[in-house]
């Protein structure tokens, strides 16, 4: 099951669609990365979107682990060096971002995993480009 509550038994395996609008945003310090991306979708009116690129820094990173806990990578600053993800809206239209990536700590050592909502405060800035996804069924 992913963060938007879709189960394998009911998930549509192929979703045809096309790319729509493009938004670029800068998320300010101390805002949460995951919720920041969700708020960009609210601001720009995107129901579904793909992350097209992003880079910036975090105060500390919170990366999910397979046992249900998360790894705290201490900064500042923890640099986000790779990120991929998408945003899907739930039945109420609330955007939910699922983001994963690679971060570098203050020594340049790298760590990776899913970014846990509420545990990834932006340090100085996070730049992100979102491309709206328009499923044919909607």
């Amino acid at each position, binding site marked *: 099951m992913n963060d938007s509550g879709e189960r394998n038994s009911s998930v549509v395996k192929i979703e045809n669609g096309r790319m729509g609008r*493009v938004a670029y*945003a800068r*998320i300010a310090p101390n805002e949460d990365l995951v919720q920041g991306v969700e708020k960009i979708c609210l*601001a720009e009116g995107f129901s579904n979107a793909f992350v097209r*690129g992003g880079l910036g820094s975090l105060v*500390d990173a919170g990366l999910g682990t397979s046992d249900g806990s998360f790894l705290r990578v201490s900064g500042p600053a923890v640099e986000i*060096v790779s990120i991929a993800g998408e945003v899907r809206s739930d039945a109420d239209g609330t955007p939910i971002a699922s983001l994963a990536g690679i971060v570098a700590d203050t020594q340049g050592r790298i760590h990776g995993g899913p970014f846990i909502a509420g545990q990834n405060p932006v*340090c100085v800035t996070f730049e992100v480009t979102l491309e709206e996804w328009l499923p044919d069924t909607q």
Partner: protein
Amino acid sequence: MLTHAQFNYPRARMLRHPGPFNPVRIQSMRHQSGRHIRLLLAPGLSLYEAVVSALYEANVTSASMTILGGQFRHLQYCVAPPDEQKKTVIAYSPPISAGAAHMIFGNATLGRDIAGAPLVHCHASICDGHGEVRGGHILPGESFIAERPISVLVTALEGFELRQSFDEETSIPMLKPAAETSHE
């Protein structure tokens, strides 16, 4: 309905920056579509020259890029530990030489600096000359592409541009979206 939740995780930290708090926390602009380009970074050039020369020729001055990985003849990067002078919360470290390195995956942004010149901001994971996987802020003018071109997926931004400006809150210049201006 009441549920009991575990509360055994550390609170997310925030940092106090030197300047006045800006109540606008998300600065965002959009356009009806993006223009996609497959760019090949030319061997021998610096990452900066390879990105800027090709994209300016295609009339692209603002873009978001995914660098799909490739070999660099020489690569330099830095990290961002706390500022010892305490003027800002972090400061870039001196350049770290990764030697002949493989960029595993990178993200980069093209915009204009405060003076209006092209600016490339790039973060990437790399495998350095010693085989160690590292990551950080790549120095685009000091990192040179090896013999084989490197593929980049470019989302060219139209309808607005990315411009560096001094950010009062953090006291650090940074890229933000802005209305297009003529630079003729």
